[in-house]
């Protein structure tokens, strides 16, 4: 079964908040050569646009990996406000 991450995220229910729960200090990302966030995030929320790391908090599964897997400490992680974010039907 080959299914893109976009289609995969389309199966999940989200209550999207206006407020970002994850903030990325992209000036730090510019110094980072490896950019592992492009690989470890299971919902591929980190992308590279014109050489800059962009984080899209919509579609975040709140797995917690970016809180400690970013080797440069560029990620300021918190959870979405109460009631917002992902809500699994199966889990």
């Amino acid at each position, binding site marked *: 079964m*080959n*299914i893109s991450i976009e289609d995969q995220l389309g*199966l999940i229910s989200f209550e999207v908040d206006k407020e970002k729960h994850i903030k990325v200090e992209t000036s730090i990302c510019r110094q980072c050569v490896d950019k592992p966030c492009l690989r*470890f995030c299971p919902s591929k929320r980190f992308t590279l646009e014109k050489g800059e790391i962009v984080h899209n908090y919509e579609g975040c599964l709140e797995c917690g990996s970016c809180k400690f897997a970013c080797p440069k400490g560029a990620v300021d992680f918190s959870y979405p*406000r*109460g009631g917002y974010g992902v809500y699994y039907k199966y*889990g």
Partner: protein
Amino acid sequence: MSEKFDAIIVGAGPAGSAAAYSLAKMGFNVLMVERGKYPGAKNVMGGRMYAYALNRLIPDFWKEAPVERCVTREKLTLLSEKSSVTLDFQDNELLEPPNSFTILRAKFDQWFANKAVEAGATLIPNIRVDDLLWKDKRVVGIVAGTDKLEANVVIAADGAVSLMAEKAGLKKFLAKEFAIGMKEIIEFSGKTIEDRFNLASEEGAAQLFIGQCTKQIPGGAFIYTNKTSLSLGIVVYINQLIESKVEAYELMREFNSNPAIAKLIAGGKIVEYSAHVIPESSRTGLFTDGLLVVGDAAGLLVNSGITLMGMDMAIASGMAAAEAVKIAIGKNDFLKKSLSYYEYLLKNDFVLADMHTFKRSPKFLQNTRLYSLYPELACKLFHRLALVKGPKKRLFDEFLEETKGKKIQIIRDLIKGLRSL
């Protein structure tokens, strides 16, 4: 709300609900807050809970709880690119009394939290706890938005990424101590599942995979059979994932298309994708003045290679925390020394005893040969045994030939394995 609670529990997962249920039964005034729309909304696990822990709290819980299937079939598969070797253990004695159940957490966690509510606990969903409330260097409650709520004790049951434990100075997050898990729920008819996994109705299978599925990164894959779906996923250590330059999501996709797996899931429909980090070896301080930490938040998890226990540990630790709170309320003393009774209880129960028994296991399980050399070796050996192309050799001679130059390494790993797992 201006009342002061006996205990406030942050998080309505299994650890939180076990603590809330126990304390409510003891007659205490308990508040449980949950940031999701409902308990379980944010919760992910592979899919199996051992019955032992919850059965002590709610005897015969499976008669009313939304469990999926009782596992009677345990499989371990060593995968190479084109072939696989499977150990298939089938035992109906695992059915009576039930040893373990496959579970879907969104349903199960709602049921369990509701049991706590029926017992008298107050549950408020849709609340994110932003901070701990402190007074004279001890925890005296929680802060959520502009609300401040007070309690004699706060129990942090906020999961693998416990911001409460971090704020209390009890936890540091290190990538090398965590794994990342990804999972899909694939729907089938119950009959298809029973046919493909050779099961009677209500019976379930748990299949673990190691080898090619993680591209030699320490970790593994799993399939658990639910009533009308499969829980299928991958777990890898985050550090090694990063070093390997492999993309997490690609592992999930490639696992699905491995010939051994593709056959099992053909014709199914993916209905949900989920992911979460797992505290493989991330121990946390268990208590401080006015605060106890339970379940995944405390890193209470054991991976013995075959049995993976997390939810059971969560429930047992929630129960122990409740017991410690009861004693602390009796003494009206909520400082460290009084709350340390919680650790004493865990040491005398299976929770910290198992963690001690398997203390070498996280390190052993990071040995990359387990995920490359050995699955390959097993597959190649069975390939030699299965193939007929002229004169045959004895099993032992084939083994000697296949392991040429690797024997000392194999013996060393075997000894380490026997000491660790």
